[in-house]
């Protein structure tokens, strides 16, 4: 039969295998679950785009691998005692990729752009009253009021420096033509397919050791792992914890684990009965088997939460972890008068791991009589639902929601104020459980209005002691970030905030 013949031919064509598909140059492929949204640092709201921007552009300050603030384009800095004036000495002799010089004027152009209020990251410069140019290589920020976390704002990817020449030439189209001072020069962005950056031969901090890096979005976990195993990607992030078994014994692959600044917790609606009762909230914390949730729902990639914010953040003070003790939980429930339990709604985004974690929390809370149904929805609907709650009416619907937070400035203020202060009630910020306590508001303010590390440390220590026992959340865990890479790649690391650094990337044999 004829058809059969040419089907065989077709199959034969299909099955012909050829040379290895992957050429070994000094070109690196970085596969991630995220997609680039923009390359304009001042208008970036996601970690992934921000991390790519960091390879192209630099700020006055930056973070090292452990999220400590280091001077980058600024040589040194100083501030006054009341945290209202910050002076920066700029590094000399640095040029942007397009040849424009880096100097005080360039800083002003960038800060002024942010201060127009038109950009997503404009809020970083909101405390600034005035930026003074002292001389060509010295600038001074005058703030409206004391702001102790201002250095973190300048180290944030939202405050990266773009070439003033490029800003003039492209205007807001700089989002597809980013020009900075970093180790890599932007080359090409094919929306939805990849971003390509090439090495900067004149990088001021030294020689860049690879020719190019291509950032490819690969949303499906299994496919990303398959790319690494088949040698079609050098580095993948995130490496799904569930599939670690597949790569752990592969001699060509190395797994990197990195503690993060991402804390996960159950948001408890503190305005609703019975969750408004502190004892009930404490009972919930006793009833949660954190380690089991980590092992099963999170593939083991986390450590139990032991404070209000993760240990990689400054001013962290260890509290817990909260012990798993069902008997104690039951006693507290009885004491609060809810021996027979009550009903709540469990809200969660439908990403599989978070859904699993919520499901487990639900299974465990059943033991102390808290029952209810799960409502899972896509992430956008989830946050929409939470941010539409009003403080007047939220008390009518007791809910427990799966929450998570990463302090994008790497500071303790941004890990507490948006989540626990009264000013952060939705829709303003992310205090979705409407936790309200004057003592907490006072301590948050104390930490914010000083730049003196000692004063701040004291305020945040007190804050953590206090909030931990008040249990506004069901504390769960702190993510461990997992990346995987081919063994001959060195120098790319995940950062605690979920970003990454590629400056030292190198291919070895």
């Amino acid at each position, binding site marked *: 039969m004829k058809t059969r013949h040419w089907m065989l031919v077709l199959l034969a064509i299909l099955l012909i295998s050829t040379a290895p598909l992957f050429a070994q140059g000094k070109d690196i492929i970085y596969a991630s679950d995220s997609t680039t949204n923009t390359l304009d640092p001042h208008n970036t709201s996601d970690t992934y785009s921000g991390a790519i921007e960091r390879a192209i552009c630099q700020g006055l300050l930056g973070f090292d691998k452990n999220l400590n603030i280091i001077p980058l384009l600024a040589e040194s800095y100083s501030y006054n005692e009341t945290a209202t004036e910050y002076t920066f000495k700029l590094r000399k002799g640095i040029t942007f990729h397009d040849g424009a010089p880096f100097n005080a004027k360039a800083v002003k152009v960038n800060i002024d752009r942010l201060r127009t209020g038109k950009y997503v990251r404009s809020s970083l410069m909101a405390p600034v009253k005035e930026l003074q140019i002292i001389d060509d290589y010295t600038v001074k920020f005058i703030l409206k009021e004391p702001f102790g976390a201002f250095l973190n704002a300048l180290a944030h990817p939202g405050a990266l420096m773009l070439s003033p020449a490029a800003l003039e030439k492209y205007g807001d189209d700089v989002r597809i033509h980013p020009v900075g001072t970093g180790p890599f020069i932007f080359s090409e962005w094919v929306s939805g397919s990849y971003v390509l950056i090439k090495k900067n031969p004149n990088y001021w901090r030294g020689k860049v050791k690879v020719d190019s890096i291509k950032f490819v979005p690969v949303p499906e*976990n*299994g496919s990303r*792992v398959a790319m690494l195993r088949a040698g079609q990607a050098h580095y993948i992030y995130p490496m*799904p914890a*569930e*599939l670690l*078994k*597949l790569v752990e014994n592969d001699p060509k692959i190395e797994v990197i684990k990195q503690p993060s600044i991402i804390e996960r917790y159950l948001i408890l609606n503190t305005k609703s009965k019975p969750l408004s009762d502190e004892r009930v909230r404490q009972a919930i914390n006793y009833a949660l*088997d954190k380690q*089991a949730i980590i*092992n*099963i*729902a999170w593939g083991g990639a986390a450590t139990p939460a032991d404070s209000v914010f993760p240990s990689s953040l400054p001013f962290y003070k260890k509290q817990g972890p909260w012990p798993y003790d069902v008997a104690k939980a039951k006693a507290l429930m009885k004491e609060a008068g809810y021996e027979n339990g009550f009903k709540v709604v469990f809200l969660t*985004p*439908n990403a*599989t*791991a978070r*859904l*699993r974690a919520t*499901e*487990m929390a639900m*299974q465990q809370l059943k033991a102390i009589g808290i029952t209810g*149904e*799960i*409502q*899972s*929805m*896509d992430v956008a*609907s989830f946050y929409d639902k939470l941010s539409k709650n009003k403080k007047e009416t939220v008390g009518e619907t007791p809910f427990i929601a799966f929450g998570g937070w990463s302090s994008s400035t790497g500071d303790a203020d941004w890990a507490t104020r948006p989540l626990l202060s009264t000013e952060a009630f939705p829709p303003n910020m992310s205090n979705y459980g409407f936790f309200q306590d004057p003592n907490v508001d006072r301590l948050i303010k104390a930490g914010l209005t000083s730049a003196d590390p000692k004063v701040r440390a004291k305020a945040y220590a007190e804050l953590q002691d206090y909030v931990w026992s008040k249990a506004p959340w069901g504390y769960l865990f702190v993510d461990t970030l997992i990346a995987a890479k081919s063994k001959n790649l060195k120098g790319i690391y995940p950062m605690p905030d979920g970003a990454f650094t590629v400056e030292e990337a190198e291919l070895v044999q």
Partner: protein
Amino acid sequence: MADKTVTPFLIFWHKFKRQKSALVAGIFILLLVLAAIFAPFLAPYDPYATDYSQAMMPPSKEHWAGTDVFGRDILSRILYGARISLAVGLSSVAIGAIVGVTLGLLSGFFGGFLDELIMRTSDVLFAFPGILLAIAVVAILGPGLVNVVFAVAIFSIPTFARIVRGNTLAIKESLYVRAARSMGASNNRIMFVHIMPGTLGGAIVYFTLRIGTSILTASSLSFLGLGAQPPTPEWGAMLAESRDYIGVADHLTIFPGIAIFLTVLAFNIFGDGLRAAFDPKIR
């Protein structure tokens, strides 16, 4: 045997029982339905009972199909899941078919403005990607299985309408319809007695294929968080929940996958038999 009346059902049965494979498939479906009904008696374990120490155990003597991430017995969940998956699959396609077939018949038979209206509306429906349509339906009605049934039913309407319309157009011009018309048969009679049976072949084939697709669609909806909410043991949701473990714990996806596969297969073969039995041209 002269006194035995020859009813249409007898003709149907006579022809259907010759389709041996369809009979087997029919029996399988019947067993499945029985299993669904009597799941509480058949299931060896409580489908909701978790045991973290038994998480992700491969198939064994105690757990024939192994356990899932929370240590729940997969076999028990599949048995209970049969209720949900079957109900969703059947009811959604049935709704879609009834509406679609009627519209297609009207459209093909009367033509003109009505045809244009129905076909263009179905174009519009068609043009909306299913997942978005489902999100919209659920956004309006709220999440839950009943709404999934509606969402899936809506997807099936245009295809039923198109198939039936196509066949109607062809049959309308056939000799026997012209003959019927010349003998003065009414529109209704021509439409439902002469044309409809001829169009059902295509519709039934699609119906059987559609049940499988519906079970799969419902599963992707469950996966999007729009359908069955955990811990409901819907087959598709079971598949989707365990996709993270493909490659490390394959039994999590294989057993619900097999359940879906066999069910779809059975409906197909059964539908084939029905089709042959319905067909007036086969004697």
